[in-house]
């Protein structure tokens, strides 16, 4: 049995924080009470971080629009798994960029690598003129 939760917000940088905190509190519900603290902590942090990266990416690549575009973050809540997708109206992009070479002291480009590392699944698709990235992790 899965439940759908949707969060729509303006594509502004302050809302990356909001989306990540909502994701963390949902992840906390997936775990429930009887998990020990560090497993709970890791699962919640994974979603807090992944959603923070995904929404930050959407917002920072939306510069060419004047008014902020609305983003939709959709959560599919299941007993042992949480799936979250982020939909924006930005131009198409690829999630297969390789991580930056560390020796070059890079300041950008870490976001996608972080998501790939901490989520079980991470996919991208184009839907009409919208990007949808989908991330999921199970217990």
């Amino acid at each position: 049995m899965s439940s759908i939760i949707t969060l729509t917000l303006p594509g502004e940088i302050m809302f990356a924080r909001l989306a990540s905190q909502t994701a963390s509190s949902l992840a906390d519900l997936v775990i429930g009470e009887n998990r020990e603290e560090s497993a709970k902590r890791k699962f919640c942090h994974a979603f807090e971080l992944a959603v923070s990266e995904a929404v930050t990416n959407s917002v920072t690549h939306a510069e060419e629009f004047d008014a902020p575009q609305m983003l939709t973050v959709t959560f599919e809540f299941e007993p042992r798994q949480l799936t979250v997708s982020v939909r924006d109206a930005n131009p198409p992009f690829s999630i297969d960029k390789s991580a930056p070479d560390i020796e070059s002291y890079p300041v950008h480009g870490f976001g996608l690598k972080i998501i790939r590392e901490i989520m079980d699944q991470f996919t991208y698709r184009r839907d009409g003129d919208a990007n949808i990235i989908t991330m999921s992790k199970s217990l």
Partner: protein
Amino acid sequence: MNNSNITLTLPAERLFARVARQTASSVADLVIGDDRHEPAGRDFSHAFELAVSEAFTNSVTHARESATPQVVKLTFFFEQRQLVVSVHDANDPFTIETPVPDIESYPENGFGLLIIRKVMDHVTYRREGNYNIISMSKTL
């Protein structure tokens, strides 16, 4: 800070009251900005945690049994230092003019709307089509 409109749609189940509450607290933190550690900031966030937890729990408690799963929609709108949150559900109409429970009678319910009225600056209820909308606002 321009004005911003956020919506959160959740299944009408007790389990999700915490997500509603924590999201309300996060939005309130955005309105407060960096003085979230000051007492005024903490009270402002706590007020919205309480108000949203109560309003959402009321919607869940009175949700009708129906084939299609019932949902509760929260919208957050903030400008400068004022935050307005409204809670939409498809339940039967109700009133927010409930009497204050008489504490000596050890009441077990009726506290919800009392808490909302005490912690929020303004509370209004209206009917829109077959939806209830309770709007609550507070200025920092």
